[in-house]
């Protein structure tokens, strides 16, 4: 179990560092999602199943969905940029 925990913690650090260095926002959010999943596996190793189930539903599910909707809202995902004539108007 200890070796498994150490591997998971290594994955956590790798995920956190690669979030900081990824250029694309979509990639950053996907990596953050996997960070949450690794975290929820770690909760199982630490004997807290309550936390694992909450982290999997909330951290990997809801938070990432909110991030994705934000990206879509600000047209940062490729293919959803508004065409020229409906460029957002200045207030």
């Amino acid at each position: 179990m200890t070796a498994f925990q150490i591997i998971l913690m290594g994955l956590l650090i790798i995920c956190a560092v690669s979030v900081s260095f990824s250029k694309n926002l979509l990639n950053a959010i996907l990596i953050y999602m996997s960070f949450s999943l690794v975290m929820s596996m770690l909760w199982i190793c630490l004997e807290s199943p309550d936390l694992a189930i909450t982290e999997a539903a909330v951290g990997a599910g809801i938070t990432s969905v909110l991030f994705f909707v934000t990206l879509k809202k600000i047209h940062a995902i490729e293919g959803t940029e508004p065409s020229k004539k409906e460029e957002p108007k200045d207030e």
Partner: protein
Amino acid sequence: MSKKRPASEYQKTFAFRFFRWLSGSKDPYLGEVEMHPQKEFRADPEAALRHEKEHDAILDKVYNPERNMEMKLFHKLYHATSIIFCLFLIALLLVTISWLPASGTIERPANNEVAERYIEKGLEETGAVNIVAGMILDYRAFDTLGESHVLFTATITVLILLRLNKTEKDEAELSDRRFEPKNDAILQLVATFLVPVIIIFGIYIILNGHLGPGGGFSGGAVIGAGLVLYLNAFGFKKTERFFTEKTYKWVCFFSLSFYCLAKSYSFYTGANQLHSVIPKGTPGAILSSGLILPLNIAVGLVVACTIYAFYAMFRKGGF
């Protein structure tokens, strides 16, 4: 008894002039001092253009980090300082951690008599098999009440920040639908099978909160995720049949006030050594552990509605 004066005579008196001066109804310089009417200001188009160009050049020189040496220096200094600070912080934390008692042993200060008491008396006093659920919904129920209110307050704040009026909302909905696959067959078929399963799983997690891992928060989040999937597959027209602003308002109102009243009753009886009428039931049965099951349901409803509301507000600024 003073007699009434005619108006023309009154206008000559000192009192009339004094009050007129006091109220400022007559310009004292008008007709007394020589005056020229002011010339109308007409901007010289060339000068205005030159002025604007100079203004832009100055702004560019001041705020462009390529041109402004001070700003460049500040950026470099800021980066260096923050990296040094973070390395210092990491070293400090690691040194502190190295002096803590070893992980996984019983000698840590956190494992004191409070935790012992919760474990030994928890099943007997709350009736919940899951000690964490018994702790957060019985011993520390105030904490959870505050947390549900945090969710509610966050929804209100997001609503204030992202709210659009009626015409803007319709426009936002139109542009929102434009980039979506309309009536995606694969997504709809998958959603038809998955959404009921996800929602039933969420209900299972909520109802078993006192028997196993889970509870109101995780189950509510799972139900909210199911609703979001349903919304994505079938669009706002379908979801608005059962979930509108009114639904959110009443569900949150009833859940939070039920939580308040139920917990007030149990705190009141507990503090006054009265006999509580709520039965504990046999531990392990689904209808047991007193108030924990209804409180879990209330919290789950609030969380599910909040998550759906967040998503709908991010999508079209209202729900």
